């Protein structure tokens, strides 16, 4: 395509969501992590889920590690905002037990078939 040009890694000035720099975004992430970490015992008690506090903290860590690769400050801010919303919904018991179990632990979710034979047997 003649009118396609390879993207240049151009630098732009854009409006931030909240954080002005990396350190600020990082501290927001840590703040969110700590808030979740401290709430987990109460969440486990209130929702009566069949998980221990340690398991929930491991899951919390896992969820944060999933987005470790994100570098854009605005995306980090958006993720933190979403995490705060989730925390608020959880702490205020706007969720129910199965929301936590299906959203985070996914024990009843069957993994999608990956190799040829299991895909064939699943009718794909």
């Amino acid at each position, binding site marked *: *395509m003649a*009118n*396609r*040009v*390879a*993207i240049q*890694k*151009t*630098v*732009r*000035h*854009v*409006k*931030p969501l909240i*954080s*002005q*720099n990396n350190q600020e975004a990082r501290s927001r992430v840590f703040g969110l992590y700590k808030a979740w970490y401290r709430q987990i015992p109460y969440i486990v008690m209130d929702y009566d889920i069949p998980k221990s506090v340690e398991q929930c903290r491991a899951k919390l860590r896992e969820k944060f590690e*999933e*987005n470790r690769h*994100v570098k*854009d*400050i*605005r*995306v980090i801010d*958006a*993720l933190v905002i*979403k995490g705060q919303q989730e925390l608020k919904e959880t702490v205020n018991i706007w969720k129910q037990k199965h929301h936590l179990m299906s959203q985070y632990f996914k024990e009843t979710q069957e993994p*999608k078939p990956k190799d040829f034979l299991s895909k064939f047997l699943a009718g794909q």
Partner: protein
Amino acid sequence: MASLMFRTVRSISQKAPHRQLSVASARLASDLPAKSAPSAAQVPGTITVEGWEDLSAINGHPAEELVTRRVRVYQPAKNAMQSGTHKYHNWVLEFDTQERWENPLMGWASTGDPLSNVQVEFATKEEAIEFCEKNGWDWSVDIKTPVKPRVKSYGANFSWNKNTRTSTK
């Protein structure tokens, strides 16, 4: 026939880490940096970012869709009837066909894919490509081959120098 009618352009990148380097899209004028160096006269309260945003972390799509889905960008074909052409200048983004089956008894068409009916319209293909890149989807663009309209004239059938009836002679 589709393969004859369209020329397909694919994104070169297959893996997410290389995506940013090989993105091919024209930029919008409003997004282009000023002609002067970016360091000059930064508006207070703004931050400096490099490249496009990667929205795949916040757009809510399951992570496996990034590797299993392919997005097709194309211009819809004109209606063969005498309708206007107003609707056919857009570029349409649609996802590949997945999880579709036919009911063995009644022949009903079904789908288990929530993205099967998603069609997003864009004014230009560059906007569509940019949207795909921001969301981390693997895209391909089908470009219409321009068709030269054939001159259809009754009078030309009787002309001495127009070879309109070569097949019957």
